[in-house]
């Protein structure tokens, strides 16, 4: 910086700094590259594979990888593993994303309102969160799935409804500090109502910690869906998700270990890239923790 001498240095926003730190973090960059590849594969892959994900091929039962054009082999019904894996990845990523958006919406709204309102309302809303925290939530998700049968939308809602608690705590904490800031006072002086202040001034400033938490929520959601699918309560076959595939692979692992190994590897790759990106983002946006 001193090399610039007398010329005025170009201003750098906090976000510029954060991006610079993020791009210097090799693990995070590797995670982003990996996630990019996986997303691309999930998006276009299924239409490139010559087999359909639910296409039964009687002659190809238990086929090992690299035979008959089955790059990753075939399962007990002769279905192509690669095709199923790509569709399963697509489903898992989609669930991760949508359920996270659900939890994001609830968490941010709840936390921002509680933090901004303060007083009794805040107390009551956070007490509700405390109570919900001490529930054995996996049981409630299971009950939900059992009660209403497994359908796609419900999986989103059930998992999203579970994951918003931490988000609301983070958002509330941030809101408590934000609402003391001058720009909020200025907005109030300008005659803005509380709803508009929350939407226009508080929420946009919550972006940093929320972004970090979102990248950590997505893998948690993918994991939760897989747990459910593993217990037979999530996505239903012949539809595939990473959890469905791993559960199926577990049953057949003695005969056809590839049915377990490949889906597991993809699952680990997905979780790892999100965790790397999340950790990198946290270090980049909130460098105090390092």
């Amino acid at each position, binding site marked *: 910086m001193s090399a610039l001498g007398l010329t005025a240095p170009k201003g750098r926003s906090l976000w510029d700094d954060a991006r610079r730190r993020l791009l210097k973090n090799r693990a995070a960059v590797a995670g982003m590259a990996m996630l990019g590849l996986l997303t691309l594969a999930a998006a276009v892959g299924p239409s490139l594979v010559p087999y359909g994900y639910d296409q039964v091929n009687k002659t190809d039962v238990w086929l090992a990888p690299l035979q008959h054009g089955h790059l990753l082999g075939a399962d007990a019904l002769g279905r192509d593993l690669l095709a199923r894996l790509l569709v399963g990845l697509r489903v898992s990523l989609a669930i991760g994303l949508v359920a996270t958006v659900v939890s994001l919406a609830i968490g941010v709204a709840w936390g921002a309102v509680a933090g901004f309102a303060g007083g009794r309302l805040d107390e009551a809303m956070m007490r509700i969160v405390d*109570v919900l925290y*001490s*529930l*054995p*939530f*996996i*049981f*409630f998700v*299971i*009950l*939900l799935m*059992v*009660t*209403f*049968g497994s359908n796609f939308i419900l999986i989103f809602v059930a998992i999203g409804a579970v994951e918003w608690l931490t988000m609301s705590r983070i958002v509330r904490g941030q809101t408590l500090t934000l609402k003391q800031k001058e720009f909020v006072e200025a907005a109030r002086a300008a005659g803005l109502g509380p709803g508009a202040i929350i939407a226009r001034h508080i929420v946009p400033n919550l972006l940093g910690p929320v972004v970090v938490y979102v990248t950590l929520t997505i*893998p948690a959601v993918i*994991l939760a869906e*897989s*747990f459910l699918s*593993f*217990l*037979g*309560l999530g996505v239903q076959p012949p539809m595939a998700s990473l*959890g469905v595939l*791993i*559960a199926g*692979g*577990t049953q057949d*692992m*003695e005969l056809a*270990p590839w049915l*377990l*190994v490949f889906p*597991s590897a993809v*699952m*680990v790759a997905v*979780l*790892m890239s999100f*965790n*790397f990106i999340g950790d990198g983002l946290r270090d980049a946006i909130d460098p105090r923790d390092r």
Partner: protein
Amino acid sequence: MFRFIGRRLLVAIPTLFAVVTLAFFMMRAAPGGPFDTDRRLSPEIEAHVLAKYGMNKPLPDQYLDYLAGVARGDLGPSLKYKDKSVLQILKENYPVSLKLGASAMLLAGLIGVSLGVLAALRQNRAADHGVMAVAILGVCIPTFVTAPLLVLALASKLGWLPGAGWNDGALANMVLPVTVLALPQIAIISRLTRAGMVEVLHSNYVRTARAKGLPEHRIVTRHALRAAILPLVSYLGPATAGLITGSLVVEKIFNLPGLGKFFVVSALQRDYTVVMGMVIVYAALILALNLVSDLIHAALDPRVRLA
């Protein structure tokens, strides 16, 4: 302190109440019932069975009956296992889950804290990087991946350990499930311990202890560790929840007669009373562990005053 415990117990009652209420009505909202069979029961028999279990009353009355039972410590009869009460089922299967969970937590605590301390003492050196790499792997590989892979390798291929079954909790049968449950916890615990330790080792009072000429092992064990594991203690509550989640899957994979396996089956069969009993037990366990972790926290940190 007793006032603190008392107040927490008082808060626990409405929480448990909320759990019971939510679970009760969710369970009853489910289509189907415990007495649905392939062959339809004749209406007379069905009415008789329903009357026997008090299920012919309106739902709010059944709810009040159930609450009254719970308050007396009576969780009712199982609707599917004809001659067993819910308490009996819990008594038979709970010890399995408990033994599994407690062993895993103990193992994870010992290994995780040791690894975390080691990493912090060798900060930014090979040992540190090694431990943190393992920790990241441990977080990213879910139990339902490690469990079948370990079974495949150590049980099916090498035949060193039994791949499934409980066998009255024989050591050989415990090794795989406990390892699988402990791995992710080891990862998280070592990360938390390392973070806490790194911070504490740079604090003033540790420098004072060094200046006093205390031997390093004494500084670490007596002075630094105590403060460094505070975040870990707060993690105890959620960790238990994680173990429970994990054990649902682990009990299924290893075919263990614990509660986790029962839960899903009972929920699918609409065995209302058994499901309710398990929800209550787990909720109570989590509440109790949260309380214990707060108490340990206060015992370790003189700045925390319980009031």
